[in-house]
């Protein structure tokens, strides 16, 4: 029997349809935010946010509340606190983030051992359960995607200047502290919402890998952001199809497809470099 038969049957199920839409939206969202986060050297920050989210989920379970609803304010407060600490501390940011995320992970695992009535498993929390996303989850992710794209598109000039050089941005009247905080809050909310589908351990891959792949082959900022979000969405859908077709874990399959995309971009770099040097293939100076 070919692989297509069970896959086509699987696509008839509403949970699989929701998973594909969820993957597409989460992947695109991760790509859009990741394209800025990577250039602002926030990759490790998103990783720390993801790991600490487990503590937020555990708090929700211990308090008997919906973990997702607890996780959003937890992630925002946590992100703002960590950002404040990183700005003020004399320690290197990566060392500080390492302390924070490994401590939160340890605290969360110890706290989880006191939980008796949780229906899910630690495996689900760590690697996500995209097949379990509800229409409400999808609505939230779609709303966040619209907010993120709207905010970044309308403030495009300010965001790029801030990404390039903060003093230059400040001198051009960009509200640097406001935009920096808004972006971190947005990233925290996206991480919190996406955890259910993607899992604590793999969330940073959604933010980092498509953006890095896109960076390797892009010469223009708009192309870079759009390509990162397209890659994020497409890799998520392909990963889910592979997962369904071969009965493999969904989150890791998506990350492996992202890795394949990254390696393909890496292989394309010499070609892009050559094309970039051929007159007539490049865009005109001022277009």
């Amino acid at each position, binding site marked *: 029997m070919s692989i297509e038969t069970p896959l086509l049957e699987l696509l008839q199920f509403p949970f699989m349809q929701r998973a594909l839409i969820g993957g597409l939206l989460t992947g695109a969202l991760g790509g859009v935010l990741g394209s800025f986060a990577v250039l*602002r050297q926030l990759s490790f920050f998103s990783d720390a946010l993801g790991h600490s989210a487990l503590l937020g989920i555990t708090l929700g379970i211990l308090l008997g509340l919906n973990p997702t609803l607890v996780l959003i304010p937890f992630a925002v407060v946590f992100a703002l606190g960590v950002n404040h600490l990183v700005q003020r501390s004399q320690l290197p940011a990566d060392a500080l983030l390492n302390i924070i995320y490994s401590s939160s992970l340890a605290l969360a695992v110890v706290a989880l051992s006191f939980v008796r009535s949780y229906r899910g498993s630690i495996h689900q929390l760590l690697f996500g359960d995209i097949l379990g996303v509800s229409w409400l989850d999808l609505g939230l992710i779609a709303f966040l995607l619209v907010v993120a794209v709207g905010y970044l598109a309308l403030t495009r000039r300010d965001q790029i200047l801030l990404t390039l*050089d903060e*003093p230059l941005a400040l*001198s051009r*009247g960009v509200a640097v502290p406001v935009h920096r905080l808004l972006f971190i809050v947005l990233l925290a909310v996206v991480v919190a919402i996406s955890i259910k589908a993607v899992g604590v351990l793999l969330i940073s891959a959604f933010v980092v890998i498509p953006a890095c792949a896109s960076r390797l082959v892009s*010469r*223009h900022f708009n192309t870079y952001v759009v390509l990162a979000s397209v890659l994020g969405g497409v890799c998520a859908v392909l990963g889910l199809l592979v997962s369904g077709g071969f009965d493999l874990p969904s989150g890791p399959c998506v990350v492996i497809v992202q890795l394949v995309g990254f390696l393909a971009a890496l292989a394309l770099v010499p070609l892009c470099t050559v094309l970039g040097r051929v007159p007539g293939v490049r865009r005109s*100076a*001022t277009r």
Partner: protein
Amino acid sequence: MVKMVLDVSGLTVRRDAVIAVDNVSFSLESETDTALVGPNGAGKSTLVQALLGILPPSAGSIRVLGHAMGPQGQLPRSVREQVAYVPQSFAVRNRCPLTVGDFVGLGWDPPGLRLPWTGGERRRSAVAHALRQTHATNLADRLISDLSGGQTKRVLLAFCLVRPRRLLVLDEAQAGLDSQSAEQFYDLLFELRRSEGWTILQISHDLDMVRRTSDRVLCLNRSLRCSGPPDHALSAAQLEEVYGRGFVPYHHRHAP
């Protein structure tokens, strides 16, 4: 046209609770070129950052084109647009996938909320004009991360030039440039100063260049130690006062 472009009175700026700039007062008249000199750690970059609204002053006042700057560096948008800045270094996060043409276009875009596809033809022609004037048209499709130090400075001038400005602030524009590139950069800067009517305030360690090109010199070592035309402000006695006893100015040797 406002004759006084910048007016600074009793300006004090702290950095981490330490007074970096103490009670500095001066003014810049339209279309003049003023150099800010002083030893490392004298507070030159701090002073410039306060003038640009990047660092809030602890005391004193700053007026740009007749408008008082707010306590957090606020200026009316129309005034802010008249001031341009060329930073000392511009390579920290320029792994950004951005071509020179796209970057210069960011200098044209007004601040605040804006649909990304607006601007169109006016933006394109302003970018092309700025690149032509800075002899950088051939760089338009290059990534900004691929530029040499001298090319980066020219592109930063194009970024400033893409809209009409009145005041140009440069923080050690010659940093990272060999003597020939520095010479070419200054030739371009002064050609543009004449054609655009810019008022220039620049931090410099190259006292030879300051002597040859500036109308006026401000000597800073936390407070303003002297000011005046180069012949007066850069005399041996004044330099000892600013840089300390035994100071020997370095002289560039340019190729004939």
